[in-house]
């Protein structure tokens, strides 16, 4: 069998930390090969070695049977290796074509030959069914389209081997389906693909083989047709994982959060939350499903006081809280696990202990007459670290030094510990691995079972379907449908999220 890429016994060490411990990955021509592992398992390190960003400390790389040395990404490009990054590397104000040719512009008598470039981009786009308009500005096209521009960039540079780094993280279900078609078209045309992911469903659907790594070690390579998601999850995590979070039927109580006719405008004066109605009761989890940018962020910021709203009403336990300050709202009984934990959730240069009292530092016992009581603060931190399984050397360690999952656990510990009547969780598991996701889902359900109201916002349909008791679909700033997760499908949700009316989705209410 012919391998286009062979990474044999690759070893990469950072200081005393072994990121890759003799990992072997062999990519066949024309296959889609998944690289599966938890966050921090060493997937990115391995791919950065292949892409020339890191030098391996051991092992060898062969491309088409020939041993090679890849000192930098330019050499990787020359060898036909292209990377589609998770975070797009695009210039927003440039057109699609300008972005694609950036760095290897075709010139005619000293000037950029933009017509020829557009022609080439159009041909490539048609050949692989990408349907990208070469003249469109990046800022004007959807995230899915931007990703295709990234794919085109690698193709334009003549890549035969494409590395996709968590490509579906930012896409809607429909866009994911389209991406899968594109990937299949690519391999039909003779390209080979490495797909970095921790989503098992995608692997089962699109990949031919899968290489699993765990804590820097290669666990093995399997044929996808001979395995199943449970086996893969167990290999990845090292223990049995439960996908369906166990939960009892909800005991729904009185309304906790009542939003009526809420209007929020963004800084440019555009209405982003448009006369929205929503009620969340005690003892239930309401999931908000929607494509990013349909008003979810603004809705949450309006509830929590981070953003002012134009009109309408937000009541918590019957008390009007609209346009109060964040502190007043927090004290009324709202907990908020923010979408961006680095921006809002933590002061990264504070210790874990200091972060644990971010909203309560001015109260006893954490301070008295304006003087902080560090003993009380660090006692509380130790308790929460223990209770929420935050893996940190100690409570004095800076939040920056923790992994994403542990940072998230710290935030959840802090928010839950304040015992709020309403807990808002925005993308609480983004970027986390299976084990941490399971833990966080359990905690959310635990809050529900204690009679609290939980509002969950997520772009992951699995999460919404799995955790919510009711699903509210948001589209262009409005709740367009409320569905029961037990009676809906991802397809229906996907269509609703894309703006279809319920009838068109073919479901009777």
């Amino acid at each position: 069998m012919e391998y286009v890429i062979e990474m044999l016994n690759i070893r990469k060490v950072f200081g005393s930390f072994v990121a890759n411990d003799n990992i072997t990955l062999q990519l066949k021509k024309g296959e889609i090969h998944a690289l599966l592992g938890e966050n921090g398992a060493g997937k990115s390190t391995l791919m950065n070695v292949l892409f020339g960003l890191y030098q391996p400390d051991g092992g060898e790389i062969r491309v088409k049977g020939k041993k090679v040395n890849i000192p930098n990404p330019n050499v990787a490009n020359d060898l036909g290796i292209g990377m589609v990054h998770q975070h797009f590397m695009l210039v927003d104000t440039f057109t699609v074509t300008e972005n694609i040719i950036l760095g290897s512009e075709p010139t005619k008598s000293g000037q950029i030959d933009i017509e020829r470039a557009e022609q080439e981009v159009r041909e490539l786009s048609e050949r692989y069914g990408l349907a990208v308009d070469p003249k469109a500005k990046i800022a004007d096209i959807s995230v899915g389209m931007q990703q295709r521009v990234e794919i085109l960039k690698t193709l334009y540079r003549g890549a035969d081997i494409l590395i996709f780094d968590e490509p579906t993280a930012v896409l809607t279900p429909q866009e994911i389906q389209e991406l899968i078609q594109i990937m299949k078209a690519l391999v039909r045309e003779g390209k080979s693909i490495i797909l970095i992911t921790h989503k098992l469903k995608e692997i089962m659907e699109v990949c031919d083989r899968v290489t699993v790594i765990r804590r820097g070690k290669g666990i093995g390579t399997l044929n996808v047709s001979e395995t199943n998601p449970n086996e893969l999850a167990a290999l990845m995590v090292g223990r049995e994982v439960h996908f369906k979070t166990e939960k009892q039927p909800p005991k729904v109580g009185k309304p906790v959060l009542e939003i009526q006719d809420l209007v929020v405008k963004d800084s440019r004066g555009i209405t982003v939350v448009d006369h929205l109605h929503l009620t969340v009761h005690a003892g239930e989890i309401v999931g908000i499903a929607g494509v990013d940018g349909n008003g979810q962020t603004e809705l949450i910021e309006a509830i929590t006081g981070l953003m002012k709203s134009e009109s309408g009403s937000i009541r918590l336990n019957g008390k009007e809280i609209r346009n109060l300050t964040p502190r007043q709202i927090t004290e009324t009984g709202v907990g908020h696990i923010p979408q961006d934990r680095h921006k809002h959730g933590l002061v990264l240069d504070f210790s874990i202990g200091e972060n644990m009292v971010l909203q309560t530092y001015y109260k006893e016992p954490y301070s008295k007459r304006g003087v902080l009581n560090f003993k009380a603060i660090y006692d509380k931190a130790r308790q929460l670290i223990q209770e929420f399984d935050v893996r940190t050397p100690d409570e004095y360690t800076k939040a920056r030094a923790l992994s994403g999952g542990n940072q998230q656990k710290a935030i959840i510990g802090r928010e839950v510990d304040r015992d709020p009547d309403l807990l808002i969780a925005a993308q609480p598991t983004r970027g986390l691995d299976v084990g941490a996701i399971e833990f966080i889902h359990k905690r959310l359900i635990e809050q529900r079972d204690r009679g609290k109201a939980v509002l969950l916002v997520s772009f992951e349909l699995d999460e919404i379907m799995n955790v919510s008791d009711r699903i509210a679909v948001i589209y262009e700033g409005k709740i367009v449908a409320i569905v029961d997760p037990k009676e809906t499908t991802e397809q229906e949700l996907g269509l609703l999220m894309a703006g279809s009316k319920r009838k068109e989705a073919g479901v009777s209410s």
Partner: protein
Amino acid sequence: MSENRLTNILVPVFAVILGIIVGAIVMLVSGYDPIAGYSALLYGAFGDRYYIGETIRQVTPYILAGLAVAFAFRTGLFNIGVEGQLIVGWLAAVWVGVAFELPKVIHLPLAIFAAAAAGALWGFIPGFLKARFRVHEVIVTIMMNYIALYVSNAVIRSVLSDQGFKSEKIYPSASLRSEFLQSLTDYSTLHYGIIISLIAAVVMWFLLEKTTTGYELRAVGFNQHASHYAGMNVNRNIVLSMVISGVFAGIAGAMEGLGTFENVSVKAGFTGVGFDGIAVALLGGNHAFGIILAAILFGALKVGALEMPSAADVPTELVDIVIALIIFFVASSYLIRLVLTRLKKEGK
């Protein structure tokens, strides 16, 4: 954790040593004797009671200026305006010193308070503009420096004197000088300001590290978004930070006006103390106790330098070169860190 702290201490120490070594090379190349030069410097700073008194006197405003810069810096702001805040503080202190004659227990605190208030006002303006209109504080504070310089000169000419170049001497009841300190240090200009500046260092440390106000200020300095999310008033904290920074700077001015000079004179240019405060804060790691050590070093260099031309024929400008080199090495601490880690690796 402790290893990190050790590096934080070692980096400035190495920077100082490197600065002195490279300074010696510069002296050699320019045909001066570095050993004689540095001996003269050392003698001029600590050689006898008089010199020690002068050094401590010079250290006093450096500590306060360093605290002012560091306080703003620790809360996420870059206060280039310490110089201007110091000048208005100096002016206000002397104004109160010459305008009233009061019992010392009232007069001296009142003069210092006036200086603090003037510095606070000079810090408030850039703080307010930053909080309200997002005007960058570096631009505003630089401009405020010039406003302070020329306003102060105008006031000295037309209010505190009759078109003269300096004010009257302040009443003894507002002075920080004392016969006791003079007799102790052979009639140097040493005054009680050093005690005030040491207290200020303790105050800064306590305020930042131990109080809820300091917690808020630091949180806002590190991450405004998270502070807002946590319910803190970000704008209020920005203004407060600049005001407190201005208070330290204003008191630094009072040290000059009530202690060192006992008057205020028209200045052709900036005193430089406020700008040196940036270097002191940087070398002191923006930490109260580090700043005291850094201020001692800078004060000793400045005062000791005066001895170099007469004793060793080395021009004082060379000390400015050494100071510049030290700042350069602190600023390029990345390089020193790299060398330190290399050394550590080889040691293992």
